[in-house]
């Protein structure tokens, strides 16, 4: 399983910028929104939590269709399905690899973009915390969507249609944490709920994803 | 006959209008598709001489 993780990470680093793409997209969103909204610091600070979370969501989505599609095309997915490790484990590892190349860099880069969007300093900690807690859920929900659409020719658009509604709870709690944190209010409740979603998604969704993959490989 | 809807006439009437149009559209589409498929299946079964 470690070997699979390393292989996926190496592929992501090598395969034509798939690694930096999500990060660059995230940066673009944070630059374009002030250009559209106007440079007033107060307005930007108010919408910053939402913008950063929506940006993270979309950046995550960008690389999702490659999660299983490449392996499906060259047949290595069939090999993995018949390999001695359970398919559920394969899905979980692939989601973990996806998180390491998208969610983790996004989390680390977020404070910089928070500064660009005039997020108050008190919100910075919670920005990083909420992304660190929430982005694993994005990857494992996304893996489910990718597993559903893996055999389809133009799966990318359908994938976003399927996955984005599933992201709603994560988005709401994630942005709420930053908003409350920046305003100096208690954040325990949304933080715990977000952690619950992440843990639940990481624990249960690999089974659904593996089921969908088996159906698609039949 | 027509009840006095007062100042909200447009609101109430457009609600009823939209709903009836949507429902009628749904029924009409379902029915048209039903008929089309039924006829196509009858033809296909007549061609093959196989009984449904």
């Amino acid at each position, binding site marked *: 399983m470690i070997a699979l993780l390393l292989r996926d990470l190496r592929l992501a680093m090598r395969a034509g910028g798939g690694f930096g793409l999500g990060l660059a997209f995230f940066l673009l969103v944070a630059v374009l929104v002030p250009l559209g909204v106007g440079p007033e610091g107060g307005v930007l600070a108010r919408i910053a939590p939402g913008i950063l979370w929506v940006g993270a969501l979309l950046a995550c989505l960008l690389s999702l269709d490659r999660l299983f599609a490449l392996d499906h095309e060259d047949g290595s997915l069939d090999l993995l399905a018949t390999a001695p490790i359970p398919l559920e484990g394969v899905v979980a590892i692939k989601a973990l690899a996806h998180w390491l190349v998208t969610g983790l860099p996004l989390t680390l880069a977020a404070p910089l973009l928070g500064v660009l969007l005039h997020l108050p300093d008190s919100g910075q900690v919670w920005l990083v915390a909420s992304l660190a807690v929430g982005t694993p859920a994005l990857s494992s929900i996304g893996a489910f969507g990718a597993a559903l659409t893996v055999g389809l020719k133009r799966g990318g658009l359908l994938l976003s249609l399927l996955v984005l509604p599933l992201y709603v709870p994560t988005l709401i709690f994630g942005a709420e944490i930053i908003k409350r944190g920046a305003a100096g209010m208690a954040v325990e409740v949304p933080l715990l709920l977000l952690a619950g979603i992440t843990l639940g998604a990481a624990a249960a969704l690999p089974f659904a994803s593996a089921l969908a993959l088996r159906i698609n490989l039949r | 006959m027509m009840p006095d809807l*007062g100042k909200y006439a447009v609101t109430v009437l457009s609600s009823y209008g939209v709903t009836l149009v949507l429902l009628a559209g749904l029924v009409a589409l379902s029915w048209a598709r039903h008929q089309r498929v039924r006829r196509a*299946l009858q033809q296909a079964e007549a061609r093959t001489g196989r009984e449904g």
Partner: protein
Amino acid sequence: MSIWEYANPKKFIATAQRVLPWVATGAAVALIMGLIWGFFFTPDDYKQGSTVKIIFLHVPAAMMAINAWVMMLVTSLVWLVRRHHVSALAARAAAPVGMTFTLIALATGAFWGQPMWGTWWEWDPRLTSFLILFLFYLGYVALWEAVENPDTAADLTAVLCMVGSVFAVLSRYAVKFWNQGLHQDSTILKVGEKDPLDPAYYWPLAVCIAGFILLFVALVLLRTITEIRLRRLAVIEARERLGS
């Protein structure tokens, strides 16, 4: 005699065709009666004026929008567990109907909200949840359309329906958490409490709800028959291609 006998498509079509005229007539009678009663013969509310008449469309549509999803969840589970094709096709047949009801609930809600809350759209928990429900329906229907192999499509949509249900419930609570909202609580279940729905509205509303339920059943029966026949047609055509 068990309910599983209707898993046989032929038997299902025969029974559905016998039942369908009755259900359809019942739906038409109840809807026409309920809506005419509601539209022409109910008094204006002292606070909401004549807009209260929208309740006869808004509430039944919203109820059935949720019930349609629940029905799809049940039939999807039956398909996954017992592999009865009729069940999967019934879920497929119900989705566009549920989607239309969701749209009706949203549209009438917007029309109702305009004079009452002074805005067409309010990011209120109930309205927002329905918008999210609409997106779920959209994804479900799109997945059915996109997958070519019918059994694969049935399996995948069933899995999506189950996972989607969990997330739909989660979204509902998340949205509640996010904004407290203007929408009043449901009034029909408040019978016996301090602010019950006036009986003048209660009975026409009950008739309308019955009408929407019957309409839903009739449409699902009709559309399921269509789906079964479509499947049969595909089989015959495939056989012909092989033969010729």
